[in-house]
């Protein structure tokens, strides 16, 4: 069973503000998921490589060449707040 403090810590790591009711709800859901997947711990996986790429590709390289892409305005147009062509954010501290 996860404690409310543990759930709260996860929520802060995930950058989502949760109400006390939500902390209780997602805590319960998390417990249920962990119960559900517990069976995996019993599976013998000795000597098995983890799957990091399903079709077996490794280290796909490309030329590190700059390319002109003139969509700066379209990209910035989606920002809630901009100033002088920069994203505007609240104070960090």
């Amino acid at each position, binding site marked *: 069973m996860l404690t409310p403090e543990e*759930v709260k810590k*996860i*929520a*802060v*790591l*995930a*950058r*989502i*503000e*949760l109400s006390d009711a*939500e902390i209780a709800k*997602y805590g319960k*859901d*998390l417990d249920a*998921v962990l119960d*559900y*997947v517990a*069976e*995996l*711990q019993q*599976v013998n*996986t000795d000597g*098995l*490589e*983890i*799957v*990091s*790429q*399903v*079709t077996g*590709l490794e280290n*796909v390289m*490309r030329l590190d060449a700059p390319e002109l892409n003139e*969509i700066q305005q*379209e*990209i910035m*147009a*989606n*920002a*809630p*707040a901009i100033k002088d062509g920069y*994203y505007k*954010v*609240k*104070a*960090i*501290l």
Partner: protein
Amino acid sequence: MPEDLAKLDLSELRQALDEKQVSSVELTTHFLDGIKKLNPELNAFITITEDQAMASAKDADNFIAGEGQNFPLTGIPYAAKDLFLTKGILTTAASKILENYIAPYNSTVITKLMAQKSVLLGKTNLDQFAHGSSGETSAYGPTKNPWDKTRMSGGSSSGSAASVSAGIAPWALATETGGSIRQPASLTGVSGWKPTYGRVSRYGVISMCSSTDSPGAMARSVKDLAMIAEVISGQDPKDSTTGEHEVPAYSKQLSTDVKGLKIGVPKQYFLDGMEDGVKQKVMDAITELEKQGAQLFSVDMPNTKYGSLVYAIVCPSEVSSNLARYDGIRYGHTTKEGKDLLDVYMKSRAEGFGDEAKRRIMTGTYVLSAGYYDAYYKKAQRVRRLIMNEFEEVFKTVDVLLCPSSPNVALTLGNAANDPLFGYIADQLNIPASLAGLPALSVPCGFSMPKDGMAPSMDGLPVGLQIIGPQWGEQKVFNVGYAYQQISDWHKKRPQI
């Protein structure tokens, strides 16, 4: 325009356009009229791109009138799941957090279709961020099933399935992560293709679970899917997971000859608790193929049961990483209440994400956090290897695997959460192939009565036959699906709406 033209399959539409029996403007107008008439009831589209569609159609007609050779999909309308970025057009992922997001560029698949002068009709509804398999988690309301509007269309590609089923789009782009094409295709009676992982570029498709995300398509027949596959497949420098494998002329190599074809029937895919009617229709379809000369083999795949457990860890892990980009600063919903930067992140995400997205982010963040990563994520990725190895082993002795695409026909809206079948058994049929990156189809194979009954005037709801092949075995699954559609006409049945 002759009414029956709009019911033609893609190769026939191609011919009609090439021979000037119909114009792209006429076709496009026809489908837009259908969308305007039926969408208020079906809720299959989030955005209808009427002006852009008419402009594209005129452009296509000019191109067709010119000297050059037409492309396979020139002038043919289509719909796109609202997970594909479309430049200058609202792209929401059916979420509130992206309710005002105008895509600044096109996904590779959309660029390929634009190069063919295809006509985008609009953006279709889905489970929010593709998190779901009922279409009900959309921030824009659930999609209704054209066969019975009190029922779901499945998901997450709910709107793509419903629009093709209702005949208001000749085909639609969709995406799969763990069943999101096969299951809704099955529930709405259309043909759906989930590609080999890396066959179709993910560039510009809003990410869910990056290691299984596979953009694909839904259409009226397997022949149509093969034609679409030739256009949208291929290596993309912008998606380094796409494979170098060349794209064969799938539609030209379709074969009806199934003599000697080795069909594996995995017993773990025919489970207690599945609807009897579904099992029966799928077995009937398999028997039909046997009569044509295919050989059946019962195969044992005991690791199948771990698929949904692995997915329960891998999927939220990747979701939590992918959704970390929604910061309320560069795009998407931002809070009005933020005091400082951290507070803006916390509140924007709290306000913008729906319940299921939050649940997956929380789960993913937990299992990836320090101290738990090895026990959960790494363990799951090792069990995933076990599942992949099992498929590899099985494909040494059989060509394809056949099974149901869904354990049930379409459920009544609002009932998914209470139906245990809907979660576990449905996952078991779809997720292992997704985790192993395999190509698969769902093709209509009959009708079955839902267990909660329906009007006696109805013959039941569509059932889907699933065809799974080895990695890059697109041609194999297309051939089996095509062969089946030459000896059946279930894919030609359309709802009365």
